[in-house]
């Protein structure tokens, strides 16, 4: 963390670079005045240029190459890419293909949420072993768990390593391997589930489900009760967006977690035509700004004046929107888990049955962790109660595809960390344009052409920084998004 005095008296600019325990390269700068953040800038420090690398290739390669955008959520990119290819190739996936895709992706949801809470975020609240890589830390990291609870949490950290590994085995059962699956392609999945493999999947699933409902969910509420003030920190715009994920019917019209938008306190139907990307403050050429992904361009310009990030500013109807578990749970407004209801009553004195009963508490550091745990509970239930019952051993999961000479396709899904869009334009049977809008970009973008901060930047406003040499709440907010 570096500090620099601002020209204005009483203001201090703090930089955190690298922001650690996230996927990727991110720098945060905040301006602190009177013990609170009054302005914030997020800078994505890496550009790889997948969009340019995909041009001229066999369109089917996109589903494999784009998975390599993210080793934590490759199945999400595989899903979005295959949906874009299915759309462009005009194929309808079989029922068993759809269900097997849900079994693959669902297992990775559980892996990702568990990894995020225990291995990326938990050290914000738990004192780890006094050995690298768990130390050094800030001198006063605001860790408040009593010794017994802390020791139990460290045990859970180790146990969760094993549980997330088991989730990967579930993914690999039908996905081939993890990270980066071979088992999902345009037209469905590559392996028809056998009785034997389904049994192996189900036996692993039981272990994971037990951990989610009996350990992960209660622990998040318990830790939240020790950090109650963090339910007031990290509000942000309170705008939410979700594309919908885990199709429940073959027309893919109903989703386990539905699509929708919540802006300025109102619920709206999601319309992909309203998506745009802006680059005034991003290291991209001005010709890339204010474009729908179907017209999208990706031309980097490293030395652009005034720009401060490799992330473009994604906007829905010109508004910054938060994506991820909190946004999905807010849009969906599901029943809370029995454990969640019980603990809200016992630990917080709150009578709540639905997610939105949390009110403004949901838009916070701890609210986001709770949303993620509650969502893991829902996805785990769907694996056990819906898809494992619906899947048919021996029934076809794949439809043969043909590459069209020219076509376009849009693939929408929800990565564990939020809304994910892939767009492909095919000309002369090869990829002519491919555009990607991952969840990270929706949340951690810089200011847009209209001057609006990105969602995480906005969530940082008001963040308490009582001691400038220990800006723990800044990265707690950032990490709560799973950026």
């Amino acid at each position, binding site marked *: *963390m570096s500090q620099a005095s601002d020209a204005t008296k009483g203001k201090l600019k703090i*930089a955190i670079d*690298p922001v650690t325990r996230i996927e990727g*390269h991110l720098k945060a700068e905040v301006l602190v005045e009177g013990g609170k953040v009054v302005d914030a800038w997020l800078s994505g420090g890496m550009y*790889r240029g997948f969009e340019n690398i995909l041009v001229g290739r066999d369109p089917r390669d996109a589903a494999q190459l784009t998975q390599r955008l993210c080793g934590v959520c490759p199945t999400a990119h595989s899903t979005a890419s295959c949906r874009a290819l299915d759309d462009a190739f005009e194929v309808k996936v079989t029922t068993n293909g759809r269900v097997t895709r849900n079994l693959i992706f669902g297992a990775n949801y559980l892996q990702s949420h568990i990894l995020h809470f225990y*291995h990326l975020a938990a050290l914000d609240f738990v004192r780890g072993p006094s050995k690298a890589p768990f130390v050094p830390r800030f001198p006063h990291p605001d860790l408040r768990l009593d010794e017994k609870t802390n020791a139990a949490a460290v045990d859970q950290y180790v146990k969760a390593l094993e549980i997330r590994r088991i989730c990967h085995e579930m993914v690999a059962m039908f996905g*081939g391997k*993890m*990270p980066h699956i071979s088992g999902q392609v345009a037209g469905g999945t590559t392996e028809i589930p056998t009785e034997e493999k389904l049994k192996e999947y189900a036996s692993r699933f039981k272990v994971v489900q037990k951990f989610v409902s009996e350990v992960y969910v209660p622990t998040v509420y318990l830790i939240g009760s020790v950090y109650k003030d963090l339910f007031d920190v990290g509000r942000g715009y309170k705008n939410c967006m979700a594309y919908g994920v885990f199709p429940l019917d073959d027309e893919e019209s109903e989703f386990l977690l539905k699509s929708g938008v919540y802006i300025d306190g109102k619920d709206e139907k999601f319309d992909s035509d309203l998506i745009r990307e802006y680059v005034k403050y991003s290291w991209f050429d001005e010709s890339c700004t204010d474009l729908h992904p179907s017209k999208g361009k990706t031309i980097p310009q490293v030395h652009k004046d005034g720009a401060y990030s*490799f992330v473009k500013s994604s906007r829905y109807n010109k508004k910054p929107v938060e994506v991820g578990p909190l946004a999905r749970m807010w849009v969906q407004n599901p029943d809370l888990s029995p454990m969640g209801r019980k603990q809200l009553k016992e630990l917080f004195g709150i009578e709540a049955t639905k997610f939105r009963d949390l009110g403004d508490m949901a838009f916070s550091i701890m609210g986001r962790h709770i949303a993620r745990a509650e969502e893991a509970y829902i996805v785990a239930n769907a694996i056990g109660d819906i898809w494992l019952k619906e899947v048919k051993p021996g029934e076809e999961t794949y439809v043969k595809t043909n590459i069209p000479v020219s076509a376009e396709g849009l693939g929408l899904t929800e990565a564990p960390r939020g809304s994910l869009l892939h767009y492909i334009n095919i000309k002369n049977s090869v990829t002519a344009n491919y555009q990607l809008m991952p969840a990270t970009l929706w949340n951690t973008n810089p200011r847009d052409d209209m001057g609006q901060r990105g969602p995480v930047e906005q969530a940082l406003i008001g963040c308490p920084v009582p001691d400038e040499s220990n800006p723990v709440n800044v990265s707690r907010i950032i990490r709560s998004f799973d950026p």
Partner: protein
Amino acid sequence: MSLTRRDFVKLCTGTVAGFGISQMFNPEIVHALKKFVPNCFWLQGQGCTGCSVSILNSVHPSIAEVLLEAINLDFHPTIMGCEGEQAFSYMFDQAKEQAGKYVLIIEGAVPVAEDGHFCVLGEIEHKDYTMLETTIKMAKDAALVVNVGTCSAYGGIPAAKGNLTESKSVGQVLAENGVKTPVVNIPGCPPHPDWMVGTLVVAINAIEQHGLEKGLAEVVKLLDDEGRPVPFYGKNIHDNCPYLDQFDQDNYADVFTDKSKCRYELGCKGPLSNSDCFKRKWNGGVNWCVENSVCLGCVEPGFPDEMSPFYEPC
């Protein structure tokens, strides 16, 4: 490290023994693990964190054993408790203290266009450190550079046709900048956790047994022309494929879900690929790419361009 001989043999079974270097893993050497705990620093350049996620899947030994007992992982952006300048300065300070003795592990390629500014890792006193500058600085004083994944080993996807960032492998960047530290490549997209942990353990054993310089020379002897440890990458996937007899009889599957025939016509790059996936398999041995779909050749220097289109025969 509480790695028992049985665990260790499990880790290496089927690869090491078969290649006639089982003497590398005799019990005395395994015992030596208890004494030598190297400092390790893990940098991430242009990658996807998939190699980090893959090493978390290590079964024998578990990743908790590796982290708590086998190595001192002083810097790893995805799992370390520390952050910001404190984390970055700590890395440089520890590296200075451990000069000549530490292991530098690198995930991701190194972009060199625009003076390396396509990948910035952190800052100290308002100075940005790019992946390019940090790699050279940290590699100079390392005892060994271990490239995990095809991006750092050979450039991988960030260096594929169409890239604008002039991404390169770590080996190439070090050679161009006169850094002579020994380099081991553990390619794969991602590499199998056994390949990463196994190679680290081999290196730790060799150094413990023979001292730093001679030990490293022993490790380098294990490498093929592409810098990969032969125990893990010494056999061709196609030559050892369970579908080989189907190939020999010209029985080719026409759709992915036909599991009775050879996957060659579907685009399998097994004939171009050298690694022990056919035997080791993935994620606790539940599956592997060829059984499930096709091999993409992700362990080879030519990945992805020479393996593309992925779903057309090679």
